[in-house]
């Protein structure tokens, strides 16, 4: 639900907003509000609870408007409206928009993600980007689409188990390209495996899988390809892969360690992608690690670019953390 909708989704909320914006210094008891608004008590209480939850109102000694928070929420609302304006700049070649079926992401892109599209996840190591990849794979699979999962940092068996845990049975619809096991010279547990330095073979293997009509290709992680092949070869490979995917209507989800490379290299990856999802972690002596997600680029539709705090729920994936 957007902020605009959250602020106005009941008559009580709209009337309370109007009441306090008309008298910003008012301090009103619940009985004052009941008397003034002449609306069902339950509706008023629900509205107050929600406004207290987002910090718009405070309740001691009576209900009053937190004018600083009100200003912040207005700025958030403005950003939301301005992001929404971008939807009119939709690119004509886009076939459709799709929800991710991941509330954290869908909440930031109210009109859906353009599809097909190439998305780059720029993540710090503590952010558990692989869980986001697995969650997206599970969501796409749940819509009945085939998913290609190319993994360089994890054993496909573990990835399979994680996706099964999120999506239930049926992970057969997910086709793996194992680029992890060959690095350790150990036998792969899946049918297809290639060493990540053999980009031509990797390209051929992926092309065959894409031809089978996949809706999404996940490559986790481009960092391995970059480390082993250098920026030029990796970007050439990814450009070719992106074009192939878009032609076949297959979306692409790439990941990259956002801290491990020069800004100039990361920028080249950013330029290649239609959309960028950034993950960062802040560390604090008292509160430990706090993780945040934001969308910093998304061609062809409006989006909310604010950092959102998230948590990883095992077996479910990324969820917005209610502060």
């Amino acid at each position: 639900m957007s902020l605009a909708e959250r602020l106005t989704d009941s008559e009580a909320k709209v009337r309370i907003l109007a009441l306090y914006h008309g008298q910003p210094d008012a301090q009103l008891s619940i009985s004052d509000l009941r008397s003034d608004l002449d609306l069902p008590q339950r509706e008023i209480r629900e509205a107050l609870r929600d406004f207290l939850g987002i910090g718009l109102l405070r309740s001691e000694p009576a209900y009053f408007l937190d004018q600083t928070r009100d200003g912040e929420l207005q700025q958030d609302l403005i950003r939301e409206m301005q992001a929404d304006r971008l939807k009119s700049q939709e690119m004509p070649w886009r076939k459709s928009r799709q929800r991710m079926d991941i509330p954290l992401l869908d909440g930031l892109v109210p009109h859906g993600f353009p599809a097909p599209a190439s998305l780059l996840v720029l993540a710090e190591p503590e952010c558990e980007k692989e869980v986001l990849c697995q969650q997206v794979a599970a969501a796409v699979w749940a819509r009945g689409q085939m998913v290609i999962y190319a993994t360089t940092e994890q054993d496909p068996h573990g990835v399979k188990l994680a996706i099964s845990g999120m999506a239930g049975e049926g992970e057969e619809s997910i086709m793996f390209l194992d680029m992890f096991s060959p690095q350790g010279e150990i036998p792969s547990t899946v049918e297809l495996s290639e060493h990540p330095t053999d980009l031509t073979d990797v390209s051929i293997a992926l092309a065959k899988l894409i031809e089978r009509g996949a809706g999404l290709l996940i490559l986790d992680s481009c960092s391995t390809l970059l480390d082993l092949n250098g920026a030029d070869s990796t970007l050439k490979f990814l450009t070719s892969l992106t074009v192939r995917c878009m032609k076949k209507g297959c979306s692409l989800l790439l990941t990259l360690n956002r801290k491990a490379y020069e800004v100039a290299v990361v920028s080249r990856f950013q330029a290649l992608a239609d959309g960028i999802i950034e993950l960062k972690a802040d560390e604090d002596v008292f509160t430990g690690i706090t993780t945040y997600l934001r969308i910093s680029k998304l061609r062809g539709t409006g989006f909310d670019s604010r950092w959102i705090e998230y948590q990883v729920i095992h077996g479910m994936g990324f969820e917005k953390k209610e502060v």
Partner: protein
Amino acid sequence: MSILFGYVKSEGVRGIDASINRNGGQAESSQTKGGDIDVSPKTSSDQVGHMIKDAMRKILGDAATAVFFKILENRKGLTPTEIANRPEDFSTLLRDFFGSGADAIERYLILTMSHEFGSRFSSRSFLEVVHEIVGGGNESG
């Protein structure tokens, strides 16, 4: 030129008196003997537009309202004074931004207009109310 709306004079809506900006409203309309309202077409269009903008300002605050109306103008070519003539475009943008919240906002706008025009529109939709105010004016003109 006068319009007889024939609506029952509202007793006012509790809780809305304090939040309604009456600027430009009362001077433009007057109540006739039977409780009917005398509103000229030009006045009612302007009045409705300003009333809607004031009500939106109450709901969203000044800054967000300014952006909303800028987008309304850019995307729909609609200034506040033209809303009364094309309320559908205003309503569409409300729905684009506020989703289900648009219904509650429209109900508040109806309350505001009821209060301002001294009439009861509570059982009507926002579009019906605006069309009635402006359309009634055109008929008598």
